[in-house]
């Protein structure tokens, strides 16, 4: 049985979409059910290793797609007002799972809306998620509920923005100029 079938059987309705790219299988699940899904993938399908966890900001991609769709629509000159589909949630969080026994990799994807950037933490299942979750929080501002120590990881604690979001400029916003230095007095 192929991996896709097994995942489909294991997850049932939780799996909302499957994408396959060059042999990499990616399954999309609802954001609320991520803990359940990951636990059952670990217990039933033997995905016992968290290879990586990271976020992606899809805002630019969606904009581009929406623009392209609009252009296409204009070209077709079809007047369908009020048919603008709300874009899908801005962020995604990806979990790269690995089954050591079967040597299979699976990407689990959840989409996280910008107005409610909250995901259940998987640190209870894998300690390996500790820093990657902190990094996603640091870089995208997605909060992980139940994380034991959700602080910024790479940027300093007072850093005001989320640098890997697509609307953050590459050259920064001069935050380093406002760094507060603490000095010790004798």
């Amino acid at each position: 049985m192929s991996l896709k079938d097994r995942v489909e059987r294991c997850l049932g309705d939780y799996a909302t979409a499957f994408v396959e790219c060059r042999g990499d299988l990616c399954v999309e699940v609802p954001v609320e059910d991520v803990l359940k899904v990951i636990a059952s993938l670990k217990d039933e399908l033997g995905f016992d290793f968290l290879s990586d966890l990271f976020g992606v900001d899809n805002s630019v991609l969606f904009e581009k797609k929406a623009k392209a769709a609009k252009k296409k629509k204009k070209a077709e000159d079809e007047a369908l007002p009020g048919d603008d589909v709300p874009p899908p949630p801005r962020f995604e969080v990806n979990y790269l799972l690995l089954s050591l026994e079967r040597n299979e990799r699976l990407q689990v994807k959840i989409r996280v809306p910008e107005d409610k950037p909250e995901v259940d933490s998987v640190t209870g299942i894998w300690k390996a998620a500790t820093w990657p979750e902190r990094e996603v929080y640091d870089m995208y501002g997605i909060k992980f509920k139940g994380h034991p120590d959700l602080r910024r990881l790479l940027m300093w604690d007072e850093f005001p923005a989320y640098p890997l979001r697509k609307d953050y400029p590459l050259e920064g916003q001069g935050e380093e100029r406002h760094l507060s230095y603490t000095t010790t007095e004798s």
Partner: protein
Amino acid sequence: MAQQCPNIPEVGDFVTINIGPSHPAMHGTLRVIAQTDGETILKADPEIGYLHRGVEKLGENLTYHQFIPLTDRLNYCSAITNNVSYEMAVEKLMGLEVPEKAQLIRMIMMELTRISDHIVCIGILGVDLGAFTPYFYLFIQREEIYEIFEWFNGSRLTTTFGRIGGVEADLPEDFEQRWEELKPNLRKAIDETDRLFTHNRIWMDRTIGTTAISPEDALNWGFTGPCLRAAGVKRDLRKDEPYGMYDKVNFEVPTGKHGDVFDRYIVRMIEMEESIKIIDQAFQMYKEMAPDAPLRAKVPKIIKPPEGEVYHAIESPNGELGFFVKSDGSDKPYRIKIRPPCYMIYQAFPELVQGEMIADLIACLSSLNIIAGELDR
């Protein structure tokens, strides 16, 4: 002390010492805030980010080829592996078939990198435990390896090796001569290190049982590479998910039993020997190739992979080094995520060193081979 770690309350007679970011034993810019009771560590909190350069953000604003030089700066002790790992991810995204000759050249270079990386790790581990001499024995040979890199790539440390779809140049003609000269010296240096360290009573006392980790914990923490193998899990991507031509060469994957500093050291020592064997076999295969065999797949001048996302991992000297590349169809990657091996390993650091002594903290750090460049990206 300028900053207190929020995790560590200042209580009682305990002393909070701040090790790093500039400290002789902190390789690169690592910082550990440790709360100690005398010499015993009650709590250690590693703080990272001092070498954060935003490589992933930069990658989103560069073309696919322009990103290769940035990958040199990740793990600067094994730049070639980083280059190849990234190139392989992009090739996978584009569905490119890399010519065999290019794959062999990559393999030879990657194994040379593995040796030089392990040399750094073992040499520095020795220095941190107070034994200076093997460091020099090994580093003289590393210098020779870097000579080969320089003469092949034009640079020693930041190699920018390979191109997407293959390699840029063939191995120079006198590679065989150079390698045959290097090999015995390398073996001798490894052997001398082995004789100075492995059965040395002080070395054994210092390393055996220090910061040991069980295989279950190691997997839970996301360990890969020599540190995972030292814990007894036989996993090597070269064997388990063979890429390139690794399925055509014979080599052993060494494993340890206890996951302590000593096992990590031994695993690395054996891996160097195995790498020498791999290079020999790969070079043999290389010699059987036609001299005018292609070195690069047909790649367009401007690389525009189709929309999609792939993850490709290879066995870097430190462990699983993966690149996740997401393309939106343009000439710049939409998102590049690097999965550095020591990033996952280093997060287990507080658990590893808890209850050990300050000297063990240093030994543990060097045996894990934490490279700030790939840790912070």
